[in-house]
């Protein structure tokens, strides 16, 4: 095997044609969650994009360095601020990596609570992602407000459970922080029961909407080969038709106990990404129903776990979960002290941006906004 006998995946170089006047534009900020911290350097030939470089780092606060200076537990609340739409799944990814590093086990009940909170997080993330995508398309308001109406209901649940609406901090190494409030599961049940109606409403409004189809079908296409090579994960990967869901592959937590499908797209365009998010919300509702039905009583913390004086033995571990935006991983190296020697976040948002240029090349400048919206990123996680 020689080093030349493989295919390298680089974006094609597009030359300006004809009279060839190239206009270079600094595009952005425009996305509701990128308030001034993300822009794109775009080169345009007429309306056609011939080059695009994402520029970020404006929100960089060296999260990893801060985490290495504090104890293991001290960075748990910082993980909430990475992807601030999905604080509970961030908690889980970090807790999972530490549990692997220290060999902790999570009690049954805590595993179920984790699944319930994570799936609620996924639903509200996908709902708002769809809302934001429609906002980029010019549907200014209605779908986003419908999505936020449902999101608020879930945030009410989170507030009751964790004390906070957005920066929920609930999971601990080897379990969860506190027992569920009385009657909380009943409230979850009511909201879950009402959710299919919301998804039907969103679908009635959008799925066969002419404008959405015209703007989203066949636009921003991502091929499965490129998606795999560029490490794309989450709904974007599955919209390209690659069957890869870490809940199914790694069976972390107790995901092997639930029956659910992994929805797949065939075209890898914006429309498929929208559709995958809708279908994943439906699957999450199924998981929630099963988890609420089966949740056992019992302890919620591993007795071996301790809050003070937590010092894992020398070694390293990489733990990952299927966060709503893709693979969220934490890589930790322990040198036997109470601080992590190396603490690394593998953010799905950053790596999903790798192919932004490939998806936009040859498209119109107006499509760039929509393609960017369909990636669904949060800059807190891109920049860390």
């Amino acid at each position, binding site marked *: *095997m*020689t*080093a030349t*006998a*493989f295919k*390298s*995946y*680089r974006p094609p170089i597009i030359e300006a044609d004809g009279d060839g006047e190239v206009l270079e534009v600094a595009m952005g900020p425009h996305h509701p969650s990128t308030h001034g911290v993300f822009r794109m350097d775009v080169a345009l030939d007429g309306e056609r994009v011939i080059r695009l470089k994402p520029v*970020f*780092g404006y929100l*960089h606060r*060296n999260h*990893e*360095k801060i985490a290495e200076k504090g104890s293991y537990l001290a960075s748990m609340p910082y993980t909430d601020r990475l992807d601030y739409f999905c604080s509970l799944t961030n908690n889980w990814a970090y807790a999972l990596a530490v549990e*692997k*590093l*220290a*060999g902790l086990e999570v009690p049954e009940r805590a595993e179920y609570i984790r699944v319930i909170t994570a799936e609620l997080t996924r639903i509200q993330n996908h709902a708002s992602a769809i809302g934001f995508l429609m906002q980029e398309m010019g549907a200014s308001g209605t779908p986003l407000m419908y999505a936020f109406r449902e999101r608020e209901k879930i945030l009410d649940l989170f507030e009751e459970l964790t004390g906070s609406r957005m920066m929920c901090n609930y999971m601990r190494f080897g379990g969860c922080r506190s027992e569920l409030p009385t009657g909380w599961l009943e409230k979850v049940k009511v909201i879950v029961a009402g959710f299919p109606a919301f998804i039907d409403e969103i679908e009635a409004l959008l799925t066969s909407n002419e404008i959405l189809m015209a703007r989203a079908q066949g636009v921003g296409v991502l091929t499965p080969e*490129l998606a*795999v*090579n*560029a*490490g*794309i994960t989450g709904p974007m990967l599955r919209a390209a038709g*690659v069957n*890869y869901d870490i809940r199914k*592959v*790694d069976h972390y937590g107790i995901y092997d106990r639930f029956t659910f499908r992994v929805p797949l797209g065939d075209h890898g365009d914006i429309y498929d990404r929208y559709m995958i998010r809708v279908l994943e919300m439906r699957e999450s509702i199924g998981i929630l129903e099963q988890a609420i039905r089966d949740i056992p009583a019992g302890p919620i913390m591993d007795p071996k776990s301790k809050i003070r004086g937590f010092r*894992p*033995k*020398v*070694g*390293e*571990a*990489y733990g*990952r979960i299927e966060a709503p935006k893709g*693979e969220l*991983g934490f*890589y930790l*190296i*322990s040198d036997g002290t109470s601080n992590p*020697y*190396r603490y*690394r976040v*593998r953010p799905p948002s*950053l*790596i999903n*941006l*790798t*192919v932004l240029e490939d998806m936009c090349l040859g498209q119109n400048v107006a499509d760039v906004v929509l393609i960017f919206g369909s990636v669904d990123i949060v800059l807190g996680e891109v*920049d*860390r």
Partner: protein
Amino acid sequence: MKSAKEILMAIQSALPGAQVEVVLNPSPSGQHSLRIDPASALAVAVFLREDSELALDYCSNATGVDWPDKEVAEKVKVAKVVEGVEQVVEETIKHVEPGYLEAVYHLFSMKKGPVNEPGPVVLRMRTVNRTDQVKLPSLTPVWRSVEFQEREIFDLFGIVFTGHPDLRRILMWDEFEDHPMRRDYVDPDDYEYEPTPHDEVLKRAEEQKAKAAEVTQ
């Protein structure tokens, strides 16, 4: 399912010249890694991606680790003449072990599912030292997913990846000179300190006030 040892043997039989060794991980996670020689890294990476049994087509995570210079104290027995009598004396000799920077890659297979149990296939590469010989081959031509992550390692740790298509700073600004994730990095007191025209403004305000008072009188 293959262990790190079996993957090592597969690499060695396909690429006889490649220097690869297993680095054991004593933690309960049991994720052992393969340390590869920078000279053969690209060939090993291509083999891992293209081999039909391993098919490690997905490089999930790439990051750097800084291991600073270490002062090691060793006790050595030395024959010495003390007060006219030859004796064996124990002496402590200190020497500095040079540090290095490390790039760590976590690989999975989307085609095959779990290849290595438990967890990912971990590759690591070391630079010669931390100061002037910090070049490593870029694995971006093999896995596009590390394009931004190698830029990040370059930015925050200072490893220079040869063969990277677009090696620029990514999180810090272009004029920034240091590498903030290094262990010995000392951050300045305040990045954004700028003297404000505090007293000048006060003086101007007082002048205005005096002028206004004159007018009203």
